[in-house]
């Protein structure tokens, strides 16, 4: 009866979502991804509303789809899966990257068509830096919307308190250092305040390299030049700066203690100077309007300022750089014209004015000041800045005007198809150097080699022959046929009786769901993945046969770093985490096996953590492990720091403690393993204990001589499954650290996932998967071999 009710419920619920999904036929949804900037959302909403009114039948759905910016994995899977959004609000410097993979649509025809209409897009009206960034191979792929330049912001109050002239900010690197020293105040365990951190805010190695006159790419964009003496000098300067203040780990743990705008260390007077986008002004006005804000162009090397040395003939003294977003149209967008209309509207004078007006209205209603943001369209920008900065405080207006001036001489990142890679590598070079894992020279050299490798691969990708699917399919079919024949002959040879034949038929029918599943979800994928591992494949283009290149790449210097790191991390987690976890869960199981009262409660409590959704666990533990406010460090500070003066670790924020932090989090979920132990413990024959007691064994001896041998099959099972589990762990790392800091928590599957769904190097990722499989396989075989020596099976049979 109950079963029937359950069945009804299941059927009913299967029907439910159909109702939810039903949509009206005559209207459609224009899906826009990526535009959620909280402080602009009200303006956007208003602009979208007007857009919807002007285009009846269209509803616009705006989604952020991923932490902060646009999650590339999400967008790629959507495009590949033929369910892309219609418009994407995309970081401009990656457009060449996406366009080179045919994931975006060129929109030159639309621009040409509408260029003379009132709302048309005319490239010459845009800042050249912005328009160049949306172009790839001579085609335009998007409409740039907002733009930003970097300035140095500083806290005038802190300047005054340190005896510095608040109206005379530092102009050169040596002045910057001198100011920073004066503004930094140390205390017993760390800092009360810090003057300047080179890469805090939005400066990056890019900026300092430009300042020194370095370039990351050659003019023709075919060669990576990140390894040049000028950039190297810049990097060395950055590293020196960090080391002046006891290195990046100390600084990071200081900064990471202040989360959110409310506690932002710059706005709350913990950091005195910061290079950041002009957009920071809006945030300061919103969160800490009381701050005495000053702004200037970022300080430059002394030689550049004085026009001496390398910079004797340099005409451009000041250096800053710009970036921003553009509206682009992914391939397969279903409503091309409407998407175009939307892009035009959101960047038009009218649309922008409406957005800002409404946002301003909203802000003023809440007593928040409104600070506009820059537009890529020069005409629109000048009008908007004039209109919306007229009535704001001078301390906010001045940076805006300065920032706008800077747009004319701002640098921008090279528009290459490997821009994302270049970005990642330049950041990694910085990280490597600053964490002392490589000298700056080694770091840039490695980055150069990696980016060049990617470039070369890109230019030679069409040299390889297309994969002929007929060959693997033919081989597959042949193998299947041979297997089928062997099975048939074998079965035939056994001369089954009629009943046995019947039973055979029933058995195969019963097992058929799994057999089918095995075929479709395991066997075919395994073969496919094996074939792919010898191919270059990005899902959008046909696969190309590259032989063992993918495997060679894995062991090549560039990828081996990540691969070895991820395997090392997995083994670290397995070697330290697994025994700890198993011991903890065994202890719990032993205690729970003691016939205590309230067993149900204990069991529930200890098991609970392991049934938590991983996302919730991750959110909770990110907070618990927070270096400043987390529960663990609060307890630590009250005890260990107090008594022994041991500083609390920064956990996930520091390279050394990130893995222990994950292990700690894993221990919390150790109750999950307890159930299997309980099963094992309860399966032990009581007589064995009684016999041991008669022989005078105490509980210690009983545990080691009876319990442990009897549960060896369970230890074995847990060990094998545990190692497989660790080698396959992914979610916690993906959500909490994305593999950082400095790949300290990069695990094989996360690495594979990034390569597969982040870069869509399916062939390469398949090769990684096979290496992973090989490792699991070898480990399992070793364990099976060793198992005979220590695992005891009751009855002596396996």
């Amino acid at each position, binding site marked *: 009866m109950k079963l029937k009710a359950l069945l009804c419920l299941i059927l009913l619920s299967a029907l439910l979502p159909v109702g939810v999904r039903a949509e009206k036929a005559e209207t459609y949804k224009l899906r826009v991804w990526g535009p959620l900037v909280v402080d602009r959302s009200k303006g956007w909403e208003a602009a979208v509303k007007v857009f919807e009114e002007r285009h009846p039948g269209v509803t616009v759905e705006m989604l952020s789809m991923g932490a*902060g910016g646009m999650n590339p994995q999400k967008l790629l899977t959507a495009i590949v899966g033929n369910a892309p959004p219609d418009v994407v609000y995309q970081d401009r410097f990656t457009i060449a990257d996406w366009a080179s993979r045919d994931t975006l649509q060129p929109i030159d025809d639309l621009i040409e068509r509408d260029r003379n209409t009132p709302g048309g897009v005319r490239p010459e009206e845009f800042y050249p830096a912005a328009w160049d960034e949306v172009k790839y191979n001579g085609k335009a792929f998007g409409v740039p919307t907002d733009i930003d330049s970097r300035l140095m912001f500083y806290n005038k109050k802190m300047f005054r308190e340190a005896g510095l002239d608040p109206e005379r900010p530092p102009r050169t690197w040596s002045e910057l250092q001198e100011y920073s020293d004066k503004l930094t105040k140390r205390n017993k365990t760390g800092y009360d305040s810090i003057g300047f951190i080179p890469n805090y805010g939005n400066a990056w190695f890019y900026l300092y390299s430009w300042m020194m006159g370095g370039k990351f790419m050659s003019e023709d964009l075919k060669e990576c030049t990140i390894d040049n003496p000028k950039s190297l000098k810049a990097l060395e300067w950055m590293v020196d700066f960090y080391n002046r203040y006891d290195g990046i780990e100390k600084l990071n743990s200081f900064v990471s203690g202040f989360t959110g705008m409310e506690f932002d260390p710059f706005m709350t007077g913990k950091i005195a100077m910061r290079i950041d986008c002009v957009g920071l002004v809006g945030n300061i006005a919103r969160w800490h309007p009381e701050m005495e804000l000053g702004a200037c162009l970022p300080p430059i090397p002394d030689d550049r300022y004085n026009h001496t040395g390398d910079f004797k003939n340099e005409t451009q003294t000041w250096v800053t750089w710009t970036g921003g977003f553009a509206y682009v149209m992914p391939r397969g967008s279903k409503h091309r014209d409407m998407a175009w209309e939307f892009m035009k509207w959101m960047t038009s004078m009218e649309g922008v004015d409406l957005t800002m007006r409404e946002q301003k209205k909203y802000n003023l209603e809440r007593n928040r000041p409104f600070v506009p943001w820059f537009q890529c369209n020069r005409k629109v920008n000048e009008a908007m800045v004039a209109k919306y900065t007229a009535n704001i405080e001078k301390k906010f207006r001045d940076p805006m005007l300065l920032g706008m001036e800077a747009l004319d001489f701002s640098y921008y990142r090279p528009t290459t198809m490997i821009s994302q890679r270049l970005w990642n590598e330049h950041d990694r070079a910085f990280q490597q150097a600053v964490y002392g894992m490589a000298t700056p020279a080694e770091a840039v050299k490695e980055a150069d080699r990696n980016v060049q490798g990617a470039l070369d691969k890109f230019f030679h990708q069409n040299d390889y022959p297309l994969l002929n699917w007929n060959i693997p399919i033919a081989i597959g079919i042949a193998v299947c046929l041979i297997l089928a024949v062997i099975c048939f002959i074998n079965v035939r040879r056994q001369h089954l009786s009629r009943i046995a034949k019947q039973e055979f038929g029933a058995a195969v029918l019963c097992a058929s769901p799994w057999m089918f599943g095995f075929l479709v979800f395991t066997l075919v994928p395994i073969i496919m993945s094996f074939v792919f591992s010898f191919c270059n494949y990005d899902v959008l283009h046909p696969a190309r046969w590259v032989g063992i290149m993918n495997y060679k790449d894995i062991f090549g210097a560039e990828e081996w770093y990540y691969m070895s790191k991820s395997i090392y991390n997995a083994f670290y987690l397995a070697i330290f985490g697994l025994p700890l976890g198993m011991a903890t869960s065994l202890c719990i199981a032993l205690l729970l096996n003691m016939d205590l009262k309230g067993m149900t409660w204990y069991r*529930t409590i200890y098991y609970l953590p392991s*049934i938590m959704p991983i996302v919730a666990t991750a959110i909770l533990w990110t907070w618990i492990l927070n270096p400043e406010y987390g529960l663990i460090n609060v307890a630590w500070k009250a005890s260990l720091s107090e*008594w022994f003066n041991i500083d609390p670790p920064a956990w996930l924020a520091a390279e050394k403690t990130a893995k222990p932090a994950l292990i700690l989090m894993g221990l919390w979920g150790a109750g999950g393993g307890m159930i299997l132990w309980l099963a094992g413990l309860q399966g032990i024959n009581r007589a064995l204990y009684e016999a041991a007691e008669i022989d005078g064994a105490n509980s210690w001896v009983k545990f080691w001589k009876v319990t442990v041998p009897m549960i060896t099959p369970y230890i074995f099972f847990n060990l094998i499954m545990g190692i497989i589990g660790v080698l396959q762990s992914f979610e916690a790392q993906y959500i909490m650290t994305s593999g950082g800091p400095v790949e300290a928590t990069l695990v094989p599957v996360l690495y594979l996932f990034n390569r597969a769904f982040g870069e869509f190097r399916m062939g390469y990722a398949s090769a990684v998967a096979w290496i992973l499989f090989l490792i699991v396989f070898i480990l399992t075989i070793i364990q099976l071999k060793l198992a005979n020596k220590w695992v005891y099976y009751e009855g002596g049979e396996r």
Partner: protein
Amino acid sequence: MTSTLNALLPVFWIIGTALAYAAVTYFITIVQEAYKEGRFWKEAGVFVVYLAVVLILGRLVFRSASAADWCALVLAVVGAAGAVVAGRKKASLATSLFLMSAACLLPFVINLGNSADPNAAGGIRSCRFFIAAFLMFAGVFSVYIAGYSQAENMFKKRSARRRFMSLSGATVILVTGSVIFLAPFVWLLGTSFKESDQIMKFPPEWIPKRQISQEFNGKKCPVWTINETGETVYELESFEDGTVKVAESGGREYITETAELTKVTKPGLKWENYPDALDFLPKSTKKGLVYLLNTVYVTLLSILGTLFSCSLVAYSFARLRWPGRDIVFGLLLATMMLPGAVTMIPVFMIFKYLGWVDTLNPLWVPSFFGSAFAVFLMRQFFMSIPRDLEEAARLDGAGYFRTFVLILMPLVKPALAALAIMTFMGSWNNFMGALIYINSPEKMTLAYGLQLFMGEAGIEYGMLMAASVLVILPVLIIFFFAQKHFIEGITLTGIKG
């Protein structure tokens, strides 16, 4: 001097914990004995009178804010002294309760230095840990002496005594462990009800608090105190730039910065975090209801699929004889070793080929084709059932499927229940599937929706925790009611091959 003593403190704590264990043992013994001899209530009454007298005396004598602390000190000393006496004689319940009170009230003693004048640092304040540790040491040690002799009286037999000691030891460890395991949950729940400024407070507070509002000039106004003077003021209007317009009770009004003020709070819950969190979701998700429905849909179909396919397949492997069975079963076991990563990419392409990207299908369809682990569990369970019934049915002419449905299915219900719950947990929490396949908000599941939400609401921890609580809640409820079936199902099945 004090710093050395403070450094030694962990040693005191370790010894103290060990002795506390003995004390608990002793206490349980005493209570049990008192019950048995019917003098429990009488003695408890004596203790209450004792407590009342000490407290009243304390109030009368000291009359200061820290009177309670001094009482605790007195109590502790008296208790410790009593313990020494009790160690020699056969202790009564009242005496033992005195002793326990000494131990229980130690936290107050630890607070002793806190409530003392903060300006008198260096003296009592800095060695408060030492005082506390010493008292604990002295008190508990004497309790231990008393307890051990008592336990000896009670259990003449050595083995019985040992068993009793180990049981109570286990209880102490289990309770301590429970507190540690539950702490993050409590923290999560607490935070989900907190105001954002309380979340960031250092040191952290466990209990959510809200600002008090009081009637002022006929209007409900939030209450603050001025940091410097401690005077109470009423907030008339707050501005986004961190300033508020306040009024003194005398009527003077002025604008000041919130940094100069402290909120007057009392324990209270900020329920608004929950609706706020739901409002934050995209409109097309109908305040997260769509997430919930999608998750329920996927979960139910997954359960149905797993139960159907795995029991059928396991039946074939466990109960039917067919050539090649063991080889195929070996293959099945081998697939458990296969990292999911190997098949992840091709399976994505298969679903892409089927046009199932951005649908819920990839999340539940595979469950209809069995999972190796579930088949394995079910097979083990089938193996443990005697064959007699089944053979009888077969003799009566029932076919294989009839036997399976009518005879075996009812017998494996516990295992099915366990499997259903396991699938529920797995499917409810499935994150990676949704991450790879789902793009539209109206098709997302809770686990993935929460992650996206985390990215967008990064700053608002209160809302984030509220959302987490909402996602966890169904799992908790189901687990709580089903845990007996679940755990027993797995325990019965075992994994021995």
